[in-house]
């Protein structure tokens, strides 16, 4: 039985997985940040000859992922990892959550995006570049709940070029999108 404290695969998981499959050419080094139940990492390591490594901060999530044979590290985002990856995947917590709405359990880490839904995404983008290989790319899921325009501005502000590679409407008028991000190379004039 998988713990109730672990985020289980939902529409966002499968949208991101499909987008990742389209990006993979084979032999890439792949990092999944916040793997949850390990659904995406598991599918990728079954499917391709890539090296897949996953992280999560949630003790129940890392155990669930390990039970599926995933090489998993318990750490905050990718803080305990010094190497670089060709593809970094992340389905972040993005639900706008007010402080009084917080319930303080481990599942909340998978959901709570702070008051504007962007708290995790901001931290993720600010610290991720050192783990990206030269021509590496990020595949990041976002929701219309945190504002597509706001997210795109954030990508630009944090030094990434972006392309929307997948999108899907789900219940309640919410839309999900997958973006491919790459660091903007500062060209010399």
């Amino acid at each position, binding site marked *: 039985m998988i713990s109730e404290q672990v985020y289980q695969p939902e529409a966002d998981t499968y949208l991101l997985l499909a987008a990742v499959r389209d990006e993979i050419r084979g032999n890439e080094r792949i990092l999944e940040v916040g793997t949850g139940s390990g659904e995406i990492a598991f599918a990728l390591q079954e499917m391709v000859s890539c090296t897949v*490594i996953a992280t999560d901060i949630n003790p129940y999530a890392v155990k669930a992922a390990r039970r599926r044979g995933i090489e*998993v*590290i*318990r*750490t905050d985002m990718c803080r*305990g*990892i*010094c*190497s670089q990856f060709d593809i970094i995947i992340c389905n972040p917590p993005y639900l706008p959550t007010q402080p009084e709405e917080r319930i303080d359990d481990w599942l909340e880490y998978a959901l709570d995006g702070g008051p504007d839904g962007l708290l995790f995404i901001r931290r993720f983008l600010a610290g991720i570049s050192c783990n990206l290989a030269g021509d590496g790319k990020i595949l990041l899921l976002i929701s219309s709940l945190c504002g597509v325009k706001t997210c795109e501005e954030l990508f630009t502000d944090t030094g990434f070029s972006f392309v929307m590679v997948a999108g899907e409407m789900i219940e309640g008028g919410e839309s999900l999108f997958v973006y491919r991000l790459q660091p903007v190379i500062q060209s010399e004039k």
Partner: protein
Amino acid sequence: MKRELHDILCCPVCKGDLTLEVLEEDEREIITGSLTCAACNVVYPIEEGIPNLLPRNRDE
């Protein structure tokens, strides 16, 4: 964790190298052990095959 994973792990605080100590290992991987950051004087545990690289309080 597999032994090779050690090469890509670092201290989550100072990003420095970690020294691996293995207490229990099967034919595939390390089950129990530790990763020590000499610079920070902190030991990060490996338990049930999972390295725990969350920053630790000094009194833990």
